[in-house]
């Protein structure tokens, strides 16, 4: 199954009630799968919105009344959704947003890229907020993380972004869906439903009192700290004896893994460190790793974005190099392997 369709199927099985989308390459399979399968499910809604802006605000509406709601897009469309994401974050509303990244800036290219890391992990909209960002690297992970994304969103009342890319969306792999779709989609407790049997409630972001807003910001921040403590995840591959560790995520990690296998066959002690949650960024385990590893290579399909988180995490422990290809160019394992090999010998790690 292709990655885009796998996300859609996983979302339906996670109890998705409302999907609002807008066409953009390379994620159209997701929207089309929803059109085919979600809209005909009892009580569920598929709607092609008039714009990305409308789609994310429809998600906001559906989330207000406790439905599991989702939208998906690719880079230029995600830019348009930022307003809505900021409001979702401010109102503490769960939602799942999928970004199958393509080359940028501007209309860019339709080929896979990782140029939206900053936008995704810093909170691309206005205001002091965070969203959980998950970085899958296989079709199986797209499915698993979609289910996890809905659970995290509900648990912490926060928008969760799945940061994929055009290759992940288009490529086909076997996938095992670990849940069956529920007969009745869940409704979140505490949602607005009309004031039956209780006092009326208000969901708002605006306050004319800065102290009140400051307290809201503190409250959000405390939850973000909790998320960082509980939900930070990462993956490693052959790091135990590694002298050079490649730090990379998503599809780039798949490419790097291929290169590492080849270099290991040649006797080079190289390993992989892969953040799975991009926010919260897994900084402590990386710091831990730097007790034994002094050479790091950050590899991204952009001009260098996650490298800033790596440098912050390492805080000067170990030397950080970078290799990146922006614009939708997809490097081969051989190409990345040559970069790793050259660095390995330059830094005298062979002896």
């Amino acid at each position, binding site marked *: 199954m292709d990655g885009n369709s796998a996300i859609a199927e996983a979302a339906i099985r996670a109890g998705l009630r409302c999907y609002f989308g807008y066409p953009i390459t390379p994620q159209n399979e997701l929207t089309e799968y929803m059109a085919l399968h979600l809209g005909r499910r009892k009580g569920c809604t598929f709607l092609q919105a008039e714009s990305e802006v409308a789609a994310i*605000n429809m998600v906001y509406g559906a989330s207000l009344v406790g439905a599991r709601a989702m939208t998906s897009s690719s880079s230029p469309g995600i830019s348009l959704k930022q307003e809505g994401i900021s409001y979702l974050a401010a109102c503490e509303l769960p939602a799942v947003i999928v970004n199958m990244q393509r080359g940028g800036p501007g209309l860019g290219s339709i080929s896979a890229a990782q140029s939206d890391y900053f936008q995704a992990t810093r909170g691309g909209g206005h205001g002091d907020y965070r969203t959980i960002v998950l970085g899958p690297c296989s079709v199986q992970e797209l499915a698993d993380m979609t289910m996890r994304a809905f659970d995290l969103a509900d648990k912490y009342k926060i928008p969760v972004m799945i940061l994929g890319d055009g290759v992940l969306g288009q490529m086909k792999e076997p996938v095992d869906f670990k849940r069956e779709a529920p007969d009745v989609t869940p409704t979140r407790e505490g949602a607005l439903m*009309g004031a039956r049997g209780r006092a009326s409630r208000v969901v708002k972001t605006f306050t004319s009192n800065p102290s009140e807003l400051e307290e809201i910001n503190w409250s959000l921040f405390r939850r973000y700290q909790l998320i960082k403590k509980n939900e930070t995840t990462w993956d490693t591959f052959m790091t135990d004896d590694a002298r050079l560790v490649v730090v990379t995520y998503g599809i780039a990690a798949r490419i790097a893994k291929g290169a590492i296998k080849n270099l290991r066959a040649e006797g080079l002690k190289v390993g992989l460190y892969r953040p799975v949650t991009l926010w919260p960024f897994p900084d402590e385990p990386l710091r831990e790793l730097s007790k034994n590893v002094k050479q790091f290579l950050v590899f991204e399909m952009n001009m260098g974005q996650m490298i800033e988180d790596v440098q912050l995490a390492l805080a000067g422990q170990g030397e950080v190099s970078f290799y990146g290809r922006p614009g939708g160019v997809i490097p081969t394992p051989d190409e990345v392997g040559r970069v790793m090999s050259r660095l390995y010998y330059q830094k005298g790690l062979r002896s």
Partner: protein
Amino acid sequence: MKLIYSRPKSLKKAAFHYCPGCGHSVAHRVVCEVIDEMELQDKTIGIPPPGCSVFAYNYFDVDMAESAHGRGAAVATGIKRACPQIIVFTYQGDGDLAGIGTAETIHAANRGENITTIFINNAVYGMTGGQMAPTTLCGMKTTTTPYGRDHVIEGYPLRMSEMLAPLDGVAYIERVAISSPAGIRRMKKAVAKAFQTQIDNRGFSMVEILSPCPTNWKMTPAQSWKWVGEEMTQVFPLGVYKDVMEPKHAD
């Protein structure tokens, strides 16, 4: 003694922050009266916009959820699609509905979303201090048209009711005015009809309310009410623009 007038149950016991003569407090009260009379208080969600009426949530005693500027119709769409049993109304100003939210409004109307829009047209951006709105009259002075709106530069006032009425998804549209007690009574009938349209699943309903903004118009309340009736209605004629229940208004 017979009680003939009291505070509606769904209007909170809070003093309005609106300026003297402002149409919002009248419109709030009328909508609340209708909500009470139709027994909708416990099944309604209202969507206030950014603008003076962002504080509507301090007055309406129903579930309220603020929308981003102009996105009311999209938010209402999300609510109604997820929970069709909820009665949803957006409360939007002219900048919100006819400016930044034009696309959301037109498409929600065209899809026949089963929602109700209360559209307050006072021809200015109120909360930000009286700038030109899409509905500002030609020649009218605002802080961003200090020499008067010139159609050569700023275009013409946008007539949303006329624009939306021909759309197939629209079930009911009426334009009323807060300029006289009779106008307010007419407004109440229109609001009730709009909610009934939604209850009956007929499609998109909207009541456009020409509403005074004495502060930004730099008029007394009495002058502003008169101006609504005498000047605004010239550009924005009152009446039923669409009513699928009454076929004579269908076009």
